[in-house]
């Protein structure tokens, strides 16, 4: 036990208190449930900073809380092992979580499930903290699944809506697809290394053949893909937007979805020794670019942000793929702030628009909600990568690392992705905050800037979104102690050139967006109605038809389709055989019974036959 334990367990207390309130319908708990969250997560936040400073000074926390599974050679415990990587994650998680808690007070104010929401938030925070603190694979898996559960609960928070309930199931099951590989990875780790402790495993990683390591890291990667919604398991994340917006900010943007990146960074020694890294990169690039293209066409404010999240996670994966673990983490770090900011900002917009999420029905909101708009724009600039905002530093590092390590194709798509990012974010900002007001009068009445409890978190998140980028150097140094970073040095001139290309492309993107959506020089219909481009547009608009294909292949095919066939087989063949044997037996009985004619002569005939039979039998034996 120790400070790590405290950090992790405090939110759990919040969950339990609020949860019992929900369970027993305690009215007094209901309106106060946010206090539990704020206080406990607040303390955790402070402790996290404390830990961070301690770690910066070179302290190492290694806690063992209690034994978990002991069986044969397997011995796994719950505990905490805090190095620089963990410390950073702790701060990110508690920081975002705290502000999301605060924000939710306002956002969820009128919801009947107010206390339930805070209970879930507590559960999530706890799970995420356990995840990042884990000293071994098994606890990692515990946290991994627990965040999945919280995510499921929160996506399905408005469970009466079918879409929400379905999205929750989709998220959970797609995560499970990844987890299926992940748990096999854990199993493989155990049988290869004989232990699940990170320390022991990583220290032996060098002694294991690359093939074995590749297998393990491939399996682990599966988990990461699922959790971080990478191609091809990415489709759950946009649907997850059915959950309340603070959740999208916390779970589906800042923390949980980044767990995959965290895990791969954590397991860098294994990945480094394997042949899997290029696959990671490819997946990352595909996701980064593909999601960005989809983001161009969406009209739901949260979905655009969700695809942008996908895309940014793709960048992180690309960074991991080229070996730039630290840059991936750095992007994770900055992304957490500005993406949370963006989501919370969109939450304010939605709140103001009485739940409307379609950007075609917005416009010109800047007038009405200046703080939100400003913060949102800051977030956007950070995301697009305009210097000196945080995103610029982190994203640029990734792009140049791809170039430096010789992955030119990666580099090209990532750069193009940056252009697209600017394009869709610009489109979003211009459509939402500027231009004509497309909402109707009823919504007009509601329009207002959000209360302080919802704007303050924005401001607090905006600060790191602006400045976190400058921590790059420190971050790199700090993290080097726990995470390797394989990036070749580039000459200054090349680096400068690359930066110029990236930034100018980003600016170009914004410019195009402005031309189309602000100045309205070109109508978007030019692209969508153009017979050549229309198929492409439809392809993008329908998200490359992934949902449809998966639904056909897996849900309706393998799942329910095969299930129905099997159920039929089970009922009529397997059980049919069982019942058939019974019926056959019964039928035999009926037939035999007919020999019992009631006429005594026949019985005598049987008797006679019997005598003959006995004689024959005696002759035979």
């Amino acid at each position, binding site marked *: 036990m120790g400070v790590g334990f405290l950090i992790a367990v405090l939110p759990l207390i919040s969950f339990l208190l609020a949860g019992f309130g929900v369970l027993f319908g305690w009215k007094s708990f209901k309106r106060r449930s946010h206090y539990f969250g704020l206080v406990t997560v607040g303390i955790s936040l402070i402790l996290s900073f404390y830990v961070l400073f301690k770690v910066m000074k070179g302290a190492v926390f290694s806690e063992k809380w209690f034994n978990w599974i002991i069986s044969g050679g397997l011995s796994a415990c719950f505990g905490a092992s805090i190095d620089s990587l963990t410390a950073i994650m702790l701060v990110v998680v508690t920081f975002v979580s705290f502000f999301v808690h605060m924000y939710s007070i306002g956002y969820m104010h009128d919801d009947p499930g107010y206390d339930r929401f805070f209970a879930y938030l507590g559960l999530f925070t706890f799970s995420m903290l356990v995840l990042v603190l884990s000293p071994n694979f098994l606890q990692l898996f515990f946290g991994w699944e627990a965040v999945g559960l919280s995510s499921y609960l929160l996506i399905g928070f408005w469970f009466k809506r079918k879409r929400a309930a379905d999205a929750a199931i989709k998220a959970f099951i797609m995560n499970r697809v990844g987890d299926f590989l992940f748990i096999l990875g854990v199993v493989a780790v155990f049988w290869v290394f004989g232990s699940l402790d990170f320390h022991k495993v990583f220290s032996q990683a060098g002694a294991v053949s690359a093939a074995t390591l590749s297998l393990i890291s491939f399996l682990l990667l599966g988990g990461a893909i699922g959790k971080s919604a990478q191609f091809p398991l990415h489709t759950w994340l946009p649907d997850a937007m059915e959950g309340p917006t603070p959740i999208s900010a916390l779970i589906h943007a800042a923390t949980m979805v980044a767990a995959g990146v965290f895990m791969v960074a954590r397991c860098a020694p294994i990945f480094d020794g394997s042949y899997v890294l290029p696959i990671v990169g490819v997946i990352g690039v595909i996701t980064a670019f593909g999601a960005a293209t989809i983001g161009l066409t969406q009209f739901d404010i949260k979905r655009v942000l969700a695809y942008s999240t996908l895309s940014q996670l793709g960048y992180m994966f690309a960074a991991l793929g080229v070996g730039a673990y630290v840059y991936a983490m750095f992007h994770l770090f900055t992304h957490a702030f500005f993406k949370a900011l963006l989501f919370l900002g969109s939450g304010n917009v939605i709140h103001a628009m009485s739940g409307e999420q379609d950007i075609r029905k917005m416009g010109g909101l800047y007038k009405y909600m200046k703080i939100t708009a400003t913060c949102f724009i800051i977030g956007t600039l950070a995301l697009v990568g305009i210097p000196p905002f945080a995103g610029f530093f982190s994203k640029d590092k990734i792009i140049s690392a791809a170039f430096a390590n010789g992955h030119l194709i990666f580099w090209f798509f990532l750069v193009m992705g940056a252009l697209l990012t600017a394009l869709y974010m610009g489109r979003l900002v211009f459509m939402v905050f500027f231009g004509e007001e497309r909402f109707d009068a009823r919504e007009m009445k509601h329009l207002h800037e959000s209360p302080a409890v919802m704007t303050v978190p924005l401001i607090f998140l905006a600060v790191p979104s602006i400045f976190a980028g400058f921590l790059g150097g420190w971050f790199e140094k700090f993290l080097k102690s726990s995470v390797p970073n394989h990036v070749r040095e580039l000459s200054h001139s090349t680096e400068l050139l690359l930066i110029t290309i990236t930034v100018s492309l980003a600016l170009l993107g914004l410019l195009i967006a402005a031309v189309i959506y602000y100045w309205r020089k070109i109508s978007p219909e030019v692209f969508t109605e153009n017979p050549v481009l229309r198929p492409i547009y439809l392809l993008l608009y329908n998200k490359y038809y992934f949902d449809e294909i998966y639904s056909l292949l897996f849900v309706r095919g393998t799942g329910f389709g095969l299930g129905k066939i099997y159920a039929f087989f089970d009922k009529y063949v397997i059980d049919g055989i069982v019942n058939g044997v019974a019926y056959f037996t019964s039928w035999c009985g009926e037939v035999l019974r007919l020999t019992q004619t009631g006429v005594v002569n026949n019985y005598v005939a049987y008797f*006679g*036959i019997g005598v003959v039979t006995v004689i024959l039998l005696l002759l035979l034996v």
Partner: protein
Amino acid sequence: MREIFFYLFAFLSVAFAVISVTHRNVVKGGIALLASFVSLGAVYFTAGAEFIGIVQVIVYGGAIVVLYLFALMTMDLKSFGKEPLKTLSVAVGGAVSLVLLVSVLYAGYKFYGGVVTAGISGAKEIALPLFYRFLLPFEVVSVLLLVATVGAVAVGRREE
């Protein structure tokens, strides 16, 4: 001479037996049975089992067959109706009987017997083993007859 009579009566008993079994008219069948039993008694006689031969005639001929005929009198013979011949029954019955007949004949063929000495066994000769050696079954037979008598009366009496 005995031999001839033996074979003659044996043949007769079998022939009458066939008639009694196959004849449609029960009364005539009964008469044929009586004839068969009497012939059988004669066979025993020729074989030297004189006591048994006499008993056979008395018990079977005198008692049992008469009992049958008496019983028949209490019934309305016209009500017996025609007896349809069941082909399957005949086939099975014939086959089974034939197989058993062959078995018995084969057993007789295999059985080392030789010529039967026609020692005469009258009542005196029989009495010794019957009343000494076979005392117990003999006593039990009396019980059997007692039971049969009482039971036959009880079962056969008209219910009111």
